[in-house]
């Protein structure tokens, strides 16, 4: 059980620090066929930049291909022979587009570094007289573009589901397997109390985890909590209840621990990771999956947490999410209590 307390901490640290797509210190190679002061200045600029780190100067196109195939560099800048920076000459940027996003980002950075050096060297023939549009960019909510802002709500959704649904379902099914459930059921205690007693420890555990995650993200990752903490915890408790009732439902339809785990993993964990918007933007998915994502409780929870925690919105903004979650609790509990009774007859 130590793992259950450790897991959120590890996940928060991993997501907070390690899981980012920000570009930095990417290995590049340069194939300079002219070796003039101009190309050397550009190379210097590329090297000095935090985005890139020079792996090697290469001397042939064959060598470039070899580096790409070995996966040593992601980008190669090729200067043509006798390059003077004139407008009819081209610096070539070759990328390894295996990872398309990274490739596009890298090409963009390299292009702008080269352009600005060309401009400041004033070698570019001044024929650009067309008017200039200057974009002023405001980055809202997450100006440093930290991955953590995106992932913290997702990790909360995942952990709560793992503890409440997976552990509850496996716990109850285990009692079925070993036969202790029968002893409890023949006792004069009402079945509903037996179930509640099984759930409370997990509810407490998830409560501790929510607090841990919030503290870690606030003080370690410096993710601000812009909205009301009370609201945040209230939503988390509601979501825990959804997860618990899901776990209960699974325990009523399965008889072995393996089956319970398989169902929890395939029916619960996978959709949370994939379809909740935790990692992958829902907007990118095909319509079927977007539509499917609506029945994933975590989607609503994560959206609500993002709104409250990061955007600092109030209860009216998350009213829809709360309603959907509440309906889910009522529906799932009703169904599983019914099934639970049927099983005993």
């Amino acid at each position: 059980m130590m793992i259950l307390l450790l897991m959120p901490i590890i996940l928060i640290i991993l997501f907070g620090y390690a899981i980012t797509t920000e570009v930095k210190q990417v290995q590049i190679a340069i194939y300079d066929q002219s070796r003039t002061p101009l190309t050397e200045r550009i190379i210097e600029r590329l090297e000095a930049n935090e985005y890139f780190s020079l792996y090697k100067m290469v001397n042939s196109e064959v060598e470039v291909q070899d580096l790409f195939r070995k996966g040593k560099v992601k980008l190669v800048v090729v200067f043509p022979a006798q390059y003077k920076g004139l407008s009819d000459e081209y610096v070539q940027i070759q990328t390894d587009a295996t990872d398309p996003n990274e490739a596009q980002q890298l090409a963009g950075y390299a292009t702008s570094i080269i352009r600005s050096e060309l401009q400041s060297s004033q070698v570019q023939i001044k024929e650009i007289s067309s008017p200039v549009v200057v974009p002023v960019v405001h980055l809202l909510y997450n100006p440093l573009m930290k991955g953590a802002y995106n992932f913290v709500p997702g990790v909360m959704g995942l952990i709560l589901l793992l503890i409440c649904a997976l552990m509850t379902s496996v716990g109850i099914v285990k009692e079925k397997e070993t036969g202790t459930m029968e002893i409890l059921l023949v006792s004069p205690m009402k079945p509903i109390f037996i179930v509640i007693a099984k759930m409370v420890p997990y509810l407490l555990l998830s409560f501790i985890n929510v607090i841990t995650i919030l503290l870690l993200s606030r003080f370690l990752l410096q993710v601000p909590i812009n909205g009301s903490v009370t609201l945040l915890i209230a939503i988390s408790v509601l979501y825990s209840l959804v997860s618990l009732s899901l776990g209960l439902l699974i325990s009523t339809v399965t008889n072995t621990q393996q089956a319970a785990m398989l169902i929890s993993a395939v029916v619960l964990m996978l959709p949370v990771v994939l379809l909740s918007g935790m990692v992958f933007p829902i907007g990118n998915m095909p319509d079927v999956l977007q539509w499917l994502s609506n029945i994933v409780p975590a989607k609503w929870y994560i959206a609500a947490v993002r709104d409250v925690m990061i955007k600092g919105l109030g209860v009216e903004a998350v009213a829809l999410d709360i309603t959907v979650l509440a309906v889910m609790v009522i529906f799932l509990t009703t169904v599983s209590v019914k099934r639970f009774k049927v099983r005993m007859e």
Partner: protein
Amino acid sequence: MLKYLLEKEFKQIIRDSFIPKLIFIVPIVQLLVLPFAANFEVKNINLAVVDHDRTQHTRRLTEKIISSGYFNLTSEYSSYREALSSIEANVSDIVLEFPLNFTRRLMTDGKSSVLIATNTVNGTVGGLGSSYLSSILSEENINTAVRVVNYFNPHFSYKNYMVPGIIVFLLTIVAGFVSALNIVREKEIGTIEQINVTPVPKGIFLLGKLIPFWTIGFILLTISMVVAWLVYGLFPVGSLGIIYLFAGVYLVIFTGFGLTISAVSSTQQQAILTAFFFLIIFALLSGLFTPISSMPEWAQKFTLFNPVRYFVEVMRMVYLKGSGWADLWPSFVILLLFAAVFNGLALLCYKKSS
């Protein structure tokens, strides 16, 4: 002796209601769903436009942005405040505001500014979105002194990038979980004791467990590659032999990993949690979802001790770049080392007596 143990394991696997399903259904579903869901391709960014200027020029710019294919025009708003509230409601991701007199200033001063406000809660969408928008706007004036050539995946297909990685992910999960549950299950049922009082050597017993999972892994790999080919038209540029060679060693690693966990756990619940714990760390720090070069120093060091990292790299390189033995042999040596370590651990942890 091994022959009889293998016979037993295979029969048990075939009669199990759980494993055959796991082998066939899970990979197909995952391969069909994951690449669509695990999509960082930044397209269809929802754009809200606030045009105070309303000239032909601003309209032309807006059209140009929409026709770039990256943006969806959600709506035009009359004030920045309204547009901002559409971001809060998650209706739009980016606001583009043309100020009053934008066009006139552009003509008279030769310079004019627009405001771009993006929702960066999701850093990738926000960051890429605003840089696309900026570059479309500034293309207006900068003549191209730079030409970009993209190799290996020139159409920027995110699926081509994800599918080989997902196949690795699948192999890891199935080999890891199924083997992690195996010995501990025999412990829970009690059959392991009957084996432990026989003179069967530990190594033979573990080998009897390992070979069936190894076979399952190969079947899984083949199914996955066929699905990848049929559904995504993705076929390795490099040699199939290399993929199977690496997969052979890789499967040994994760079966050994699972068997180690199985040997030290006393209940299935415990085994599954432990396996989940390690696999999630391995998966997140493998470069499968986010580039390793973006990770902090300590995490990059950690990835050196992560077998998933090497096989993800190898699969992507063989699938997309057609890298060959000469490029990949260092990874092979490293994977062999992992196989030795994990299986040595399994041998060490599995005790015939308590």
